[in-house]
């Protein structure tokens, strides 16, 4: 029995819409050239690949199945090993003992003050002190080799799909590598490296907690993976909320000018004048108290957390549409004076049709660039907002919440650094990919940067 929360449906729809958009724009001759530029850039292709993997994780985490008492996503089911292997409390990455000492009763009846063995981490080891390193090395190599091979297969598959000269069998290995475009070479290398890394992680996760466990003994790697969905939801759904406002109002202001323009300009200057964080905070505070009044609306805690996530996206969207709106207004002002628009008008094409057929498609590059640029800042903003407690619900798995709970743990002795490292690491990779891809997209699609290096 499948169960979808609102953000699940919206996320899946958004991913579908983006794919559709990509296909449609590939059929437009004038857009095919910039896309080819993106395909030819190693950074662009590699970051697109990694973003694709993150999105896959998010999508897997958005398809949920009702199982009696609890609702689990496909990701939960696939990683049930990680999800259920909880410990009592903190433990180091790849550790065998807990990080917190406690009274342990030994077999001869004495009580000693020591760090107990973990329930899951390294339970297959009989003599952990001697065997642990050998076992880790074995898993490391086995996982690395197998994962690397799988990655190589995927690499070949990608090259076969993306490279127009399909007859790969006609090449010897050396000429193949030499003739392969640089970007595809980079993608193939990325696949192999990724394969190794994932293989190692899978092999190690079979017997240990790769990134340790947190205060209540949950696996940190699993939490990091769960955080992917929240990050992607915030990055994409917020944009979805922004687009109707910025696109609609921007086009109206630029096309009709006059009082429409004045009103819309007044609107966005007003919104711009309020410091962003404060507006978000104010809206979230009000949201929370409204939600408190309508407690009955939410059947369960997850439904409530999901509603809050959706509300956060909407609020972020409403507070951040002004930048793009201004750009679109300026571009529309320019476009409406173009000869082809004048010609269409003289030919008696209706205003609505002019907007739809002649103006809207030419704003595509602005939207694409701004969506890509906003994505990374939204992912980063989530962490900050969660820290001020106006972000996602505390029960939602997100990197911001992980950082928020873990930041005081650095003060423990010995410091607990792995939760922070995991959350920051995952966030860094996602944001870095988004930033790099945004740069490549901007260089490819912005006509002003035609000749820029």
């Amino acid at each position, binding site marked *: 029995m499948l169960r979808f929360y609102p953000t699940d449906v919206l996320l899946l729809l958004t991913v579908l819409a983006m794919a559709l958009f990509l296909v449609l724009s590939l059929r437009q001759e004038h857009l095919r050239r910039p896309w080819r530029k993106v395909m030819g850039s190693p950074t662009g292709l590699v970051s697109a690949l990694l973003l694709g993997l993150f999105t896959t994780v998010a999508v897997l985490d958005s398809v949920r199945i009702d199982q009696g008492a609890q609702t689990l996503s496909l990701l939960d089911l696939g990683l049930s090993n990680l999800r259920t292997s909880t410990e009592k409390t903190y433990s180091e990455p790849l550790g065998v003992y807990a990080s917190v000492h406690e009274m342990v009763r030994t077999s001869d009846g004495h009580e000693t003050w020591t760090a107990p063995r973990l329930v899951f981490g390294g339970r297959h080891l009989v003599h952990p002190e001697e065997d642990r390193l050998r076992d880790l090395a074995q898993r490391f190599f086995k996982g690395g080799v197998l994962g690397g091979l799988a990655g190589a297969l995927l690499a070949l598959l990608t090259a076969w799909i993306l490279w127009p000269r399909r007859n790969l069998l006609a090449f010897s290995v050396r000429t193949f590598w030499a003739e392969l475009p640089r970007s595809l070479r980079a993608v193939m290398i990325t696949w192999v490296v990724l394969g190794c890394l994932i293989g190692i992680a899978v092999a190690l996760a079979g017997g240990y907690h790769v990134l340790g466990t947190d205060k209540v003994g949950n696996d940190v790697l699993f939490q990091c993976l769960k955080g992917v969905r929240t990050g992607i939801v915030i990055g994409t759904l917020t944009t979805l909320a922004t687009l109707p406002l910025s696109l609609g109002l921007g086009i109206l202001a630029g096309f009709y000018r006059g009082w429409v323009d004045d009103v819309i300009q007044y609107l966005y200057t007003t919104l711009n004048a309020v410091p962003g964080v404060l*507006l978000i905070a104010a809206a979230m505070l009000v949201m929370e108290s409204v939600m408190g009044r309508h407690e009955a609306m939410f059947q369960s805690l997850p439904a409530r957390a999901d509603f809050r996530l959706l509300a956060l996206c909407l609020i972020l969207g409403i507070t951040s549409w002004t930048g793009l709106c201004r750009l679109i207004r300026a571009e529309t002002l320019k476009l409406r004076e173009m000869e082809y628009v004048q010609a269409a008008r003289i030919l008696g094409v209706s205003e609505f049709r002019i907007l739809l057929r002649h103006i809207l498609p030419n704003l595509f590059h602005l939207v694409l660039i701004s969506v890509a640029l906003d994505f990374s800042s939204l992912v980063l903003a989530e962490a900050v907002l969660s820290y001020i407690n106006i972000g996602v619900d505390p029960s939602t798995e997100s990197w911001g919440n992980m950082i928020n709970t873990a930041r005081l743990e650095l003060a423990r002795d010995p410091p607990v650094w792995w939760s922070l490292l995991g959350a920051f690491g995952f966030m860094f990779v996602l944001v870095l990919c988004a930033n790099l891809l945004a740069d490549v997209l901007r260089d490819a699609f912005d006509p002003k940067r035609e000749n820029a290096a």
Partner: protein
Amino acid sequence: MMGYLLRRVLYGFPLLLGINILTFILFFVVNTPDDMARMHLGQKHVTAEGIAKWKHERGYDLPLFYAEKETGLRCLTETIFVRKSLGLFVFDFGQSDAGRNIGADIRERMWPSLAIAVPSLFLGLVIDIGLALGLVFFRLSRLEYAGLALCVALMSISTLFYIIAGQYLLGRWFQWVPISGFGEGLDAFRFVVLPVLIGAVSGVGSGVRWYRTLFIEEIERDYVRTARAKGLSEARVLFRHVLRNAMIPILTGVVVLLPLLFTGSLLTESFFAIPGLGSYTIDAISQQDFAIVRAMVFLGACLYIVGLLLTDLSYAWVDPRIRLDD
């Protein structure tokens, strides 16, 4: 000039009014005073009398827009809108929901905010511009490529990481500076170093990229080619010609930020326990003290408008081609 200024100031009023109405709707219409009272008194054990008393003490028991019971002009003045919202226009911030005088709080807490924000801004500027000039000097070389890649990487790191790592490294590991807190007078210096440093460093990635694009734009101009053709050294071209001309966009970009320095940085101040306006706001948010949040929103908007005005003035000041009287 004076006419222009006057017009700009007058144009600010509808903006402020819009913001005023926006926050009013958010805090008094969507979320009624009854809800506020219930939230402050605790959701469960509240009596109707308790709510009425709480509202009366804070003046929230008046009608929203129009008082039917009153006569004459008092119909309009004896309302929450006039009492609580329009008062902001004369900077009468009134009392917070917890009973403190917001105006006095703001005057007192402004200084620690400035002590952090002003040095961060200027240190950041010096570092960013210096590094950006360096990148431009070595443009089209591997060094520039590596520098730009590093900038993207630095941009992708969360601000929270800079703060947490900085506190741990400098505060706990080396113990050079106190981890958080604030002191009086010269003692404050010890506390200011770390937040200022982190504030400057966390902006380096995006800052250097931004200033680099400004310089690159300038470097493609004809006068730069002329300067090179005269045989000037590259360093001289950069410092004497490019930097001086790029100062126009740099200066105007900074001026718009200046007024907002008063409100401080929410994140830095709350992490370092600095008693400034940023942490004031954060505390208000976590205690759900709407009166303070409303006041801060209004103050921020005013400062933003002042910033825009200053930008226009600074344009006219540094660029003789721009004249403000039309």
